[in-house]
């Protein structure tokens, strides 16, 4: 990595910590939401970026993580930290299950994208109808601000925890990309048949990516629950999180460790700016997101990270 990139990342990190410690509540709220989306997008990036399997239904993992911890806490009085652990495991489990069903049936590419979308929608309708999720009225978690409950009086503290999670996954992703498992992901992404010919178990490799991706996105769902203390089926399993986690990766830079974080922060900043400029017209920020997705695919297939790297190598033609 180039010195300039390291400096840029350190500066961004410092700014984020600064906002978390000293920023006004609105800024912290913005940052927490953006970072939760970044975490969900990091999950998407492992599966879609590194392993090449595009999912349109990551809400299935986000919602499962969120609901498992919320239900365990509100209905069974389970400790919040343990609840979140269970939520993450449930995300890995549902990821493996959906992956096992779809990949065993030989679904690839667009078919896989569509079936993940359908799974997320079935879960959304089921969650809206089932009594255990509180149906249409949703679930409210009891306000009890103690660290033992994973609730904090200071929003800044929570923001730092989310930031720590994002950085941990950043490190994990960077590490995995360099291991044999990461090479297997890339091999499956580039050419499944060739990977199989090299003796890679394609199904197991994809399931590993699904489980890991599911767990990370479920963790984002758990953090969402702990921060907002409220959940309904349209938040948990709604298409917004499927779209935003995919979009953040594409905009930030697919199959790059920092891409999802850059993308999530950029998109949320843009969303806020649009709302400020255009007022409260429902959907106007999403119109922009859709157009950005088209434009990013057309003009910047490697996302903002790619643009940054291109600009860096233009400045130092030796590289």
């Amino acid at each position, binding site marked *: 990595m180039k010195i300039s990139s390291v400096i840029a990342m350190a500066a961004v990190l410092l700014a984020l910590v600064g906002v978390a410690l000293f920023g006004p509540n609105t800024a912290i709220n913005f940052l927490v939401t953006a970072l939760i989306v970044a975490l969900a997008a990091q999950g998407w990036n492992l599966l879609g970026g590194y392993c090449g399997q595009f999912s349109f239904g990551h809400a299935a993992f986000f919602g499962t993580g969120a609901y498992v911890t919320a239900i365990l806490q509100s209905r069974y009085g389970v400790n919040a930290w343990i609840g979140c652990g269970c939520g993450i495991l449930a995300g890995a489990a549902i990821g493996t299950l959906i992956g096992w069903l779809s990949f065993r049936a030989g679904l690839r590419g667009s078919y896989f994208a569509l079936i993940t979308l359908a799974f997320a929608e079935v879960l959304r309708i089921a969650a809206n109808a089932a009594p255990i999720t509180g149906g249409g009225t949703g679930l409210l978690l009891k306000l009890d601000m103690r660290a033992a409950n994973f609730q904090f009086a200071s929003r800044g503290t929570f923001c730092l925890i989310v930031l720590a999670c994002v950085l941990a996954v950043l490190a994990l992703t960077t590490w995995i990309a360099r291991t044999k498992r990461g090479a297997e992901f890339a091999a499956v992404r580039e050419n499944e048949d060739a990977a199989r010919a090299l003796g890679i178990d394609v199904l197991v490799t994809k399931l590993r990516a699904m489980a890991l991706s599911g767990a990370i996105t479920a963790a984002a769902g758990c953090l969402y629950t702990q921060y907002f203390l409220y959940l309904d089926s349209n938040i948990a399993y709604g298409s917004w999180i499927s779209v935003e986690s995919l979009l953040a990766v594409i905009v930030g830079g697919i199959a790059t460790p920092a891409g999802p974080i850059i993308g999530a922060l950029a998109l949320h900043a843009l969303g806020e700016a649009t709302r400020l400029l255009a007022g409260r017209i429902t959907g106007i920020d999403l119109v922009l997101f859709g157009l950005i997705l088209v434009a990013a*695919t057309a003009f910047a297939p490697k996302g903002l990270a790619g643009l940054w790297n291109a600009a860096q190598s233009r400045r130092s033609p030796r590289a």
Partner: protein
Amino acid sequence: MYTPAIVAEAMVNGLLTGAVYALVALGLTLVYGVLHIINFAHGALLTCAMFAVWAASELLGINVYLAIPPLALIFLALGYALQRFVIGPASRGDDANTLLVTLGLSIAIENALLAAFKSDTRTLSGDAAFDVVELGPMLLSRPRLIGFAVALVVALLLWALLRRTDSGKAIRAVAREKMGASLMGIDVRHIYALTFGIGCACLAVAAGLLLPTFYVTPRVGQAFVLVAFTIVVLGGMGSVAGALLGGLLIGVVESLGGLLLGESLGQAGIFVIFILVLLLRPTGLFGARA
């Protein structure tokens, strides 16, 4: 508890709805068969067409059925331009890119409609929805009967277009062998755009047939697009006859499912059927190639 007459009526109603579903699916399967892409914006474009029909009827006071031909032409042009100038250049022939570009378009279109029309549910004024025809022991809605007939005629026209005209031959040639067609002097980019335009024109017709008995909201397309995908997979990707049969079948299944299980489960039922079809018969019921 269900007399044969009620079941028969549900089945016939299912067939009537199924024909319009088939029309939506025809556009999708044609685009898939020729361009080998899944057009994720299909649902959003249908919603767009439904709003156009609504506007033509409510704001301009044009009869719904008279509005269909000009709207079909407009959507033909719109689809042509979309593929030629946006989807084609932006995705550079890569499947994953096409998926992302059409997803982006669908998000943009749907939310632009949301911003313009809010999330209110709109229907056509007038009592066309209650206009019924007595057929033996059954009471059938007249707009739905018209929809059924027109959908079948359009499907037939489409089939004739593909079989009998030069453009149709070129489309089939490109679907079969892109490189070979290009070497024979066929402009592949033009054929791609034309096919996409025809797919959109199908949507405009379907929208005109749906609206007299249905409602429109900015999100209405999502439900239809999954139904259409189910039909396309069921009928075999790219098969026109398969889409027609698949559409009628899904219409009947949905109608009977609604009768036996209630409406709320019917909504989830569509997705469950879709998942089951993909998992169990990804090559379609009629055993087409994958």
